[in-house]
């Protein structure tokens, strides 16, 4: 697990090719489509990986890793991608080339090498403090076919959900929502809370929001920036 694959290191920037280079007789070609099912929430760059049963990108009821925290609070997936690549996972880094807007889809290819039989995905949800959409260690079927799964919204448990849009707050540990793509967010909120009672990864309770564009508790808009699970659909074609 600790052994750095030098080929993988060299091809980090074109991560889709890692699987092909490391492929064996058991490699599978996957065509993956991710759909943002929400009406007003944006997904930051996706980190999608096929990996062994020995690792996972996140575990419910456990504290977030610093790498997961960086993704969930600021959309920065570089740490997660490094961890995964070092563990010889096959990674699709930012396949949507930026934000995945509400009700939009992205389709991409991923080839998983022998033993990387589990598929995971994360992306931060905006505008939230540390909310993310996740797929956790979904076992890739050996049989060719089309499979679907519905994904939930998680709270990394690393930041209080104050729901205030604050520039620069994407950095881990800086309180606030770094951005609200699509507009519609307010300003001047006083903050929903300063506490995070469950500091492990859990199901997100949703944005509270409010209807005050220049004040209130939250900068999120309570008619736009809410959701219920599931928040995403993933379709996997095993070829």
């Amino acid at each position: 697990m600790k052994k750095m694959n030098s080929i993988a290191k060299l091809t980090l920037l074109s991560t889709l090719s890692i699987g092909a280079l490391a492929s064996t007789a058991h490699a599978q070609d996957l065509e993956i489509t991710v759909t943002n099912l929400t009406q007003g929430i944006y997904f930051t760059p996706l980190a999608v990986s096929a990996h062994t049963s020995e690792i996972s990108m996140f575990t419910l009821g456990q504290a977030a890793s610093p790498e997961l925290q960086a993704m969930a609070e600021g959309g920065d997936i570089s740490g997660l991608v490094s961890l995964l690549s070092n563990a010889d996972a096959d990674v699709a880094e930012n396949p949507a080339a930026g934000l995945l807007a509400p009700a939009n889809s992205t389709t991409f290819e991923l080839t998983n090498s022998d033993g990387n039989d589990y598929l995971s995905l994360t992306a931060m949800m905006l505008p939230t403090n540390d909310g993310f959409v996740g797929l956790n260690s979904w076992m890739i079927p050996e049989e060719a076919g089309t499979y679907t799964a519905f994904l939930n919204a998680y709270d990394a448990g690393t930041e209080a959900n104050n729901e205030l849009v604050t520039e620069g707050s994407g950095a881990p540990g800086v309180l606030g929502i770094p951005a609200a793509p699509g507009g519609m967010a307010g300003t001047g909120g006083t903050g929903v809370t300063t506490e995070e009672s469950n500091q492990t990864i859990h199901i997100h309770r949703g944005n509270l929001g409010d209807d005050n564009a220049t004040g209130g508790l939250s900068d999120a808009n309570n008619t736009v920036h809410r959701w219920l699970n599931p928040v995403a659909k993933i379709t996997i074609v095993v070829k």
Partner: protein
Amino acid sequence: MYKPNSLTNSAAKITFASITMLLLAGCPFDDDDDNDTDVIEMPMPEPPAEYSYQIEVTNLTNGQPMSPVAVVLHGDEQLWQVGMSSTNALEILAEGGDNSSFTSQEQVLAAASGDDILMPGNSTTISITTTDEMANHISIATMLVNTNDAFSGLTGLDLSSMAVDSSFSRNIGTYDAGTEANTEASGTIPGPADGGTGYSDVRDDIDVVAMHAGVVTADDGLSSSVLNQAHRFDNPTIRLTITRTK
């Protein structure tokens, strides 16, 4: 010296011997018309097979402690159903977190309970064992204690085809018992957000089980609610991993 016991013993011996002979005479297994030895060496009946399961439950909510998790085994039936009225046992669990009626209801063939309140982010593992072959369906239930009558769980899941050492996981949503109106009012919620009344035999809601719509809370405009934004939840609220260990 007079020993009443030895008399009794001899009498018992004689009785035992005659029973054995009677058995020999009528034994249905003595089909090779051979002799007595087959029957005498007939193996004792094997001890009944044990069926053991481990149930790991994780509380996935932000601010909803959960009552001690009830785990019961029973035959092929549902202990609740959407659209049907809650049993009293379920009402007592869903309104007050007390699982004692739920685990002792008539259909239950084996029961176990979590030791304590299950806090958000925490997990608990509960073991349950039975020798009853009919006890091959499982139901699991726990109250979200900062609500009027919300509970999470599943009922009537068939375990009969589970192999030893196999396991599976499920994310589980939230039901409303339909027995208490979701007022969120002071004095009606037993959890730490209120410390109010748990179970009351009054049924002032729709009186059928349905999926729960979530709590509104004072922060979201229900001014009479004792709950705040931290108590809100979305599904799933628990994650279960069931492992057959025997």
